[in-house]
């Protein structure tokens, strides 16, 4: 059979997954909605951000949640010169792992920067929040991070 004879058709899988969060992830997302970033303290003293129910290294159950950030350090970054569908920004941006002040782990997010030359590991960034009325309890309640001091 020639290539032109094989039948093709577009096929879409579309679904909205609705997941329960549990008390730890739920508290973090509630914090985001309220304009605060929370981390979980594990018995070994590590502050995990974003918080998991168990310490990712020692598997101990986490305890108290504490406020971290809203600023921190870029531990690594990459330049998305062509943003893909549904990614947080629709102009070129940097992906980054951001270790917030007070945290021992880094959080994946994006940095709104004018170009890759404005990015470097070790730079300080701070959260740019979505307006309170638009925050719903979602990672993107933080619209992005920006270089500290840049507004």
């Amino acid at each position, binding site marked *: 059979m020639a290539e032109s004879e094989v039948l093709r058709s577009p096929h879409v899988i579309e679904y909205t997954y609705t997941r329960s969060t549990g008390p730890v992830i739920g508290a973090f997302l509630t914090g985001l909605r309220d304009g605060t970033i929370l981390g979980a303290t594990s018995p070994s003293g590590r502050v995990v951000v974003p918080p998991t129910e168990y310490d990712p290294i020692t598997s101990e159950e986490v305890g108290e949640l504490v406020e971290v950030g809203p600023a921190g350090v870029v531990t*690594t970054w990459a330049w998305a010169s062509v943003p893909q*569908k549904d990614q947080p920004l629709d102009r070129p941006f940097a992906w980054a792992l951001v270790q917030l002040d007070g945290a021992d782990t880094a959080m994946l997010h994006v940095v709104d920067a004018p170009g890759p030359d404005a990015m470097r590991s070790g730079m300080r960034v701070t959260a740019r929040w979505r307006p309170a009325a638009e925050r719903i309890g979602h990672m993107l309640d933080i619209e992005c991070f920006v270089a500290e001091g840049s507004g």
Partner: protein
Amino acid sequence: MAAAGGGRPVRPVAVVSFAQSKMMRREELRNDVEVLQPVIVDVFEKIGLSKDDMGFVCSGSCDYLVGAPFSFVQALDAVGAWPPMRESHVEMDGAFALYEAWTQLQEDDIDTALVFSFGRSSISELGRVLTLQLDPYYMAPLWPDPVALAALQARALIDAGTYGEADFAEVAARSRRDARNNPNAQVTGDKTAQELLGDDYVVAPLRRHALPPITDGATAIILAAGDRARDLCERPAWITGMDHRIETHALGARDLTISPTTRRAAVGAGLLPGGGEGSGTGGVSDDGVSVDVAELHAPFAPQELILRDALGLGDAVVVNPSGGALAANGVMVAGLVRIGEAASRIMDATAQTALAHATSGPCLQQNLVCALAAEPAGGRR
């Protein structure tokens, strides 16, 4: 000889047959079953067996890649699932299906197993499909694609000070040059690293050459135990150990410049003495794996460097003579192909010992190491 959980001796099991499709960017005509079928026919024909001789069948594939639930059930049409067979499946690369089959063969009641995997990455938005494997609360809602995540790892490696973009280009150049000797490879080339550095960035610091191709393909392996293996194959590739380790899915809680799970898996597979951490961010440890050939599943060029360091591979080890995942990266397939290619070097007598590695998850999150040798008792302890 390496111990399989609990310190029991490992039952000698070998790769006795390996087949793969010609890896290609896009299969224009056939569906998964039709791509897989000739590979299944081939893997049996090489040793004169049929599905009725198999004690166990295990496959690896991903429903999201096809866009259909239970797609792996339909794939069994290519094998013929009657009379009812002992069968299993993993929603993972076929290398992990082989681990399950090898584990089954450690019990004495069966002597043979068929393992296969397949996937057509061309039909979907592959980046979006792979994003669905990420943490659904914290990471997936940002839709980071696999290139972006690998780029974060590449930048971390550069920051650590031991490797740079030129090293990534060297891995890519060598891989595609070597792929010219592999009739099943998809991407070959003869550019130098210097020439490749002229490529555009896709997600900096990764340039186009540092990325794997998008691949459609299928592969199959037959395992046999003890004397059965010797009857079927002149030079079986004996599995002297196998292990699979997983790191946390919380990307920011990992050191992306090292692969401690690859090292632990190599220990578990009997290729390294127990204890000790990875060698860190560069340099070759004195305490390294010594094999003739290593097939490493490194879809992104910088990952090969991380894996080499984790395993402590010296310059004498031939790495990825097949071209590796940079020459053909069938999602769900490339890991099992690494085992097949490493086993082939033993079966064709170009190597006495080999290591095959497979990975799963973002930035080398999960790692499997399979130790192979021309002799069944070829442990390294």
